[in-house]
């Protein structure tokens, strides 16, 4: 349903969908983003912070 609406928007702009449908799409996209962030990005950022410090310390040594 959501992907169908998304295709409609991509092809025809917003003229073929109503406000509630646009909001349904944006809310779904938002919830997917939240899920992605919680499941993937949080751990990735923590690892990055650790690595960032390690790389800087290595640079300082050389």
């Amino acid at each position, binding site marked *: 349903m959501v992907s169908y609406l998304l295709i409609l928007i991509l092809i025809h702009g917003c003229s073929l969908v*109503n*406000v509630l449908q646009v909001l349904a799409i*944006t809310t779904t996209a938002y*919830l997917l983003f*939240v899920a992605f962030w*919680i499941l993937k990005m949080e751990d990735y950022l923590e690892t990055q*912070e650790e690595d960032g410090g390690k790389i800087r310390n290595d640079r300082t040594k050389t």
Partner: protein
Amino acid sequence: MMLQIDSTVVTWGWGFLVAYIAMILGLGYLGYKRTETQDDYATARGGFGFLVLALAYAATVASGSTFMGIPGLAYGMGFKAGYYAMIYPIGIYIGVLFVARITKKVGDRFGSQSIPDFLGDRYQSPLLRVLAALIGLFLLFYIMAQVTAAGWMFETILGLEYGTGIWIAGALLLVYLTAGGSHADILTDAVQGAIMIGVTILIVVMFATGWGIDGGISAVNGALPSDMGWNSHTDPENPTFANWWVIFLLFIAHIGFTAQPHLGNKFFAIKGSQYMKKFMTAAAIVGIALPLMFLGGVLGRAQGIQIDNPDAIIPMLFVENLPAVLAAFLGVAILSAIISTADGLIIAISQIFANDLYRKTYVPWSGGDPTSDRVNQRALWISRISTVVVTIAAVAAVRTPPQYLSILLWVGIGGIISAYSGPYLVGTFREETSKTAAIIAFVVAFGVYFVIHLGPQFGLYEGWYPYNQNPFASTGIGLIISCMVTYIVSQFTEPLPTSHLDEVFRPERQASTDKNSDD
């Protein structure tokens, strides 16, 4: 404006108000028992689980605006008001995802008690702390707006004069906040958040079933004038919905909303960083649900309810459609939504005086130790006294609702978002962000916001930015400038010392380094 309210609603309203007061007094007392130190008062550090905090956070975000202003907008503009109602929480909770973990981690590590304090600690900059604290004082206008909304609610549901209602609201806030500080704030907000979810579900059900109109949602749409219907997406005449670009800027502006001191300080209260993911998930879901209240404004318009003040459409919808007892209960629930935002704001301002300006600025400047017991006890007293002073000042200032309240409100909100966003957001993701870049971005972005929005709004000169009347579109530009300046200036200036960055981002490693050097 004095509305004609059924006397049964008023009677039930008083009953529920008394029950509500008893509840918040009880929770205030509970908060008082848990408040022993200045840190307890300021942050309730580590005091709450993820669900309580998520409800409290969502309740604080969903101010009187979500339950009065936005449904009022929908009553006046129809479905397109949903672009504000549903896009702003998306911005805010994406902002929460970006900053919550680091704010909690660094705040606990340094004992930061507010967002200005956090920025000062993150960048080792007393100047940035003071600048952020001074701009944060503009939140007083935000409190004034909430107190005004509370006054209108007292008038609408209880038939009280506006002037009496604002003093009752102020007294309510004073009683539990002075004693219980952040603990009382979060406890009461969590309960209020749970009630607000119930109200929202009711509104969604009423809308989905086309309450009072035969034919369901389609009939609701059909009953609206065509320019308010769901096929009308934008309105060139309205600065907020003029086109898709300004709607996008509305989203961008709200990413920085979480930097507001009364929201950012909530992150310190979660029990531990390990609960942060659960908190973020729960807050993101509750937060996107509450603004569905806009559907009540649409339904009210479709039902043809006639009202002078559109902001009162939700209480009037209840009064017109539901039994008196339910209408009265829901009216008091909306009042609780307003109170739940005002209390967080008051605590945030009290911390500007007690922590940011006194404990972390004046005490070190005068050669004292900001961590000493004497200083902490004195800061606790300053917190309580400034809570009283700020509340009374806010109520006194809106005895006659100020003409420029909405403009003044956005001096605080837009100014804080513009100024804080670069140092706060960019500094979260880029360790290399320099102190100089943070300070320059802070000043430049506030200046840009002033030039494009505040100057024209105060009538100082003609606005040249095409959307200068729209605070969201102006704040969005302020946020973008703030982030860009922070990033670019950091490329050419000295980063903070590695030892400090380790302490901020890798406290475990810093601790082991300290241990080795001691050995």
